């Protein structure tokens, strides 16, 4: 897998982990600190935790919980949700998080991306772009956990995000999220071709083949939620992660060496 990262994305609702489909119908799936411990034992490449209700509930990030999670995360750990100011981002780094994920705040004001990347380093600032197809007018970027249409075009916006100084971009298809039917490959390919910074594919992964396809099309990393948290058709909660050898084999020839 070397260099091609496989990233479990955990969704947080202030204190508990949740999972849904197309950004809706979230149900409780477990305790975050415990889940991180399990992912730690499974030697995951990287972990992303997103508090999906912080911005909509006008809440600050739950720094106490994030600190607890970070103390168990002996892998690269990215946090997003409710980050509004530079001081929020500095606080994250103080408590042991190495990447800050900006979404709604970046759409509002890209200068936050620039200021943050100057302080904590470009590689530590990730911008997450949620988008979906609209009835007229094609794919548009949505903020506030998929609630508000910003009317921005995802590709044009991603290029501006790169210029603003982001270190990487997570591109998340709301239409594919939680469906296990595969990523939105067209957009991933277009983005990876147009951007110089790493693109992380997110939304819809259901199998290792989906990872491979995204990487073959230029994604530098792949993120998945359901695939690592649910098992079977009744979606029983079970945390899994592929073995290193399995991923190494999957990405053979893609190792940048």
């Amino acid at each position, binding site marked *: 897998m070397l*260099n091609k*990262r496989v990233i479990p994305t955990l969704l947080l609702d202030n204190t508990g982990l949740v999972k849904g489909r197309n950004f809706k119908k979230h149900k409780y799936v477990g305790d975050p600190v415990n889940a991180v411990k399990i992912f730690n034992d499974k030697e995951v490449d990287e972990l992303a935790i997103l508090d999906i209700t912080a911005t909509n509930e006008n809440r600050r990030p739950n720094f106490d919980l994030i600190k607890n999670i970070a*103390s168990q995360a002996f892998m690269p750990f990215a946090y997003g949700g409710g980050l509004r100011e530079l001081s929020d981002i500095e606080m994250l*780094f103080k*408590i*042991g998080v*190495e990447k800050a994920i900006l979404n709604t705040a970046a759409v509002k004001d890209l200068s936050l991306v620039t200021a943050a990347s100057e302080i904590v380093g470009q*590689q*530590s600032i990730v911008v997450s772009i949620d988008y979906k197809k609209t009835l007229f007018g094609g794919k548009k970027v949505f903020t506030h956990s998929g609630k508000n249409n910003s009317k921005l075009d995802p590709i044009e916006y991603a290029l501006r995000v790169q210029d603003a100084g982001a270190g990487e971009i997570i591109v998340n298809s709301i239409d594919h999220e939680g469906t296990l039917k595969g990523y939105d490959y067209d957009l991933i390919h277009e983005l990876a071709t147009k951007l110089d*910074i790493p693109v992380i594919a997110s939304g819809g992964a259901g199998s290792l083949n989906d990872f491979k396809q995204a990487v073959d099309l230029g994604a530098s990393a792949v993120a998945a939620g359901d695939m690592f948290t649910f098992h079977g058709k009744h979606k029983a909660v079970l945390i899994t992660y592929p073995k290193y050898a399995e991923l190494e084999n999957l990405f053979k020839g893609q190792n940048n060496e």
Partner: protein
Amino acid sequence: MFVIIDYGTGNSGSILNMLRKVGVEGCVSNDPEIIKSSKALILPGVGAFDNAIKKFDDSGLRGLIEEEVLVNKKPFLGVCLGMQLLFDRSDEGVLNGLGWIPGSVKRFNFDDISTKLKVPHMGWSIVKSPNNSELFFDGFEEHRFYFVHSYHVVCDPKYVIGTAQYGYEFVCAVRKDNIWATQFHPEKSHKFGIQLFKQFVNLVC
């Protein structure tokens, strides 16, 4: 006490978590007395080279730390940018580095190879230790560590204790006397990182 030097930049929180994990007492400090009485010093670092060197100078700790490390030979570990700062200069900035180890820091340059890789180099890579350095546990078949960087060190092979591949082979771990440093993030490299910190602790204690 293992002291993580606090000079206003760096991933001190995650290194502190790692020290706790391997069971040694650690703290993040800029207190001269604590630095003086420490068992070992750890220099973290993220962000830009000039910004970090400037902050290090502004902290007023440089004289004291150089005495502890270069004169008193206190065990020292630099991590990521905390490794790059130990050298003479960097492509990334105009200010001089600390110059504790001769060498310089270059940006990844893929002009001579056909595939253009993305910079920064971000992800896990296998690290090889040409001289089986004591920093790397010999019980692992291979060593994998997490990297995030756009620049890498170029120095005399006699200081090199680890290399990795990204487009070409580059230096990712060095040692000079009591000074060890890694380009990768052992504090974020689960079992491989935990073991590296254990090895460092064994070297110190």
